[in-house]
């Protein structure tokens, strides 16, 4: 049976090297080559290849953001020149990766491992949960979300505050509100705790956007943003806010 593969790397020479290493493996068919993260997400959806050679440091979206946006978990072989944060996460979760420059032998090994896991789709693959955990634990620079089939990228520094609704969250950033299905606590863990403070059970506030804290009612408080919007602050939230500033 032939295996389909996708190569994602913004450097042409790096893609050609993988192509060359793959030439020895006659059973692998390269169905797509991508030079940035956004294109990779599109191609993954279009041709759902069984194997993905994924560079971490790519323009538009990083390799890890590609996984987050596409939901892809199996058959991924990471390649990276140097990214100490990603490498630490890989080691922590025992995810296999190729360090550039890599030899044919090392490449074949990683390919063999991925192939073995693809060969038994019924068996629980260790890679998927490990990747899941790694993605949910990393610190975000931007938040990805899908709205009406389109992928949006929101830099975290543009976020004003995030509000929890029933089973989704509302991200208020740059005069817009975005909906994302994720729990507030989950997202809170991925954001810089020095910048984002849980001021209320249902509100996560970017303190750089806060203008003042005002009293409201007996001993209640409310945070006033630079543009005048008001975010409720609970008693515990007020304590956290005070220690943060």
């Amino acid at each position, binding site marked *: 049976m032939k295996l389909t593969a996708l190569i994602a790397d*913004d*450097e*042409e*020479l*790096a893609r*050609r*090297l993988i192509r*060359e290493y793959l030439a020895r493996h006659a059973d692998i068919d390269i169905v797509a080559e991508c*030079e*940035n993260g956004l294109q990779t997400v599109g191609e993954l959806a279009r041709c759902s290849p069984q194997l993905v050679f994924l560079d971490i*440091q790519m*323009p*538009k979206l990083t390799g890890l953001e590609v996984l987050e946006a596409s939901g892809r978990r199996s058959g991924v072989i990471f390649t990276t*020149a*140097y*990214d100490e*944060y990603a490498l630490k996460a890989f080691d922590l979760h025992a995810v296999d990766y190729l*360090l*550039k*420059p*890599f030899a044919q032998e090392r490449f074949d090994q990683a390919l063999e491992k991925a192939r073995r896991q693809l060969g038994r789709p019924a068996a629980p693959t260790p890679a998927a949960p490990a990747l899941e955990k790694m993605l949910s634990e990393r610190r975000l*620079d*931007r938040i990805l979300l899908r709205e009406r089939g389109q992928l949006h*990228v929101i*830099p975290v*520094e543009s976020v004003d505050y995030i509000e929890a609704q029933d089973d989704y969250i509302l991200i208020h950033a740059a005069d817009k509100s975005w909906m994302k299905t994720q729990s507030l606590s989950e997202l809170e863990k991925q954001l810089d705790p*020095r910048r984002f403070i849980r001021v209320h059970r249902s509100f996560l506030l970017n303190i*750089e956007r806060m203008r003042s804290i005002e009293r409201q009612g007996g001993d209640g408080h409310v945070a006033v943003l630079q543009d005048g919007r008001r975010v409720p602050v609970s008693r515990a939230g007020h304590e956290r806010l005070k220690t943060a500033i």
Partner: protein
Amino acid sequence: MHPIFSSAHRLQWYASAWLFVGAMLAASLVAAGDALWTNALFFALPVCLLYSFIALSAYYVCRSLPLAQRQALHTGVSFAAAAVIAGLTLVGIGTAWTSIGRSLGIEWGAFELTRRYQVLLFGLGVALYLLSLFAHDGLIALENLRSAERREADSRALAREAELQALRAQINPHFLFNSLNSISALTSLDAAAARTMTIALAQFFRQTLALGERQKIALSEEIGLCESFLTVEKIRFGKKLDAAWHVQQAALPAAMPAMVLQPLLENAIKHGIRDLSEGGVIEIAAEVREGWLRISVNNPCSIEQDTEQSAGNPTNQGNPRHTGIGLQNIRQRLAAMFDGRARIACRRDDRQFIVELTIPFLPLEDTPGRPS
């Protein structure tokens, strides 16, 4: 507050000196035959001690007339006026104290402050106050000297720190390993290109090691370094990357810290050209005008591009992803070398990102010409 109050030890010495002055005054009163020792001491010691605090006000008079901006006449008038006021105050203190002494009605507390003694007291007050003014001037000058030395040491430490950071940045692991990966790919595709790239990479590292150790280099040397860097990057990014130099001949010998232009080019590629699928041209210009050297780096960037390229903005400082040396470090090194007379600004115009650097034009002597 006056610096003397910050140390009990100093205050003690100061009071002792004034008590000695008081004792001398008492001794002269006794010698003149106008008072007994008890009466003379009872008069002179408290008056001098009180006046010692008045004399401390000289500190504020000196501080209000900074040494560097003094004019002889203005200073003379101010000092004389302050001394006269102080002298009159001393007479006032003396008069008040003698009347208190009289009202106490004790024999050794009485002292007759005659007109003659009032004049004497006034003269003494003026003289001592002038002395205090000069002493304060001396101390302030000494303090200024010390703080200037401290500032210089601070700026040296800052420069060293910046240098260290620059050295670390030179060996950008991402650049090194990606280049090695490209060479590895080229060995089978195009052996000659692999060799060219190996040589350019070696040359780049050799130049950074040699230049990084030097306090200042000529613009021509920095350009040589950038050309090796671009040779490597052009092979890595292929047709996507190109560079155009517009450098005035007169600008070549300009002195600057090493590794100022190269990180700007690195940023232009990393946050600009790399994100464009069609690639682009980096425009580098340098010119000398009216004693200033102006360098600009201009690169196309995508519309949705965030502000990452301006890694100098403080919000990016704590972000480990921005491992690029950043504008902040360049700014610090330029400030250390040109004593604050350097400016670096970046802006976005539509689809262009422009960094502009303005520094005093100081030609470095015996600069080697631009390497071809």
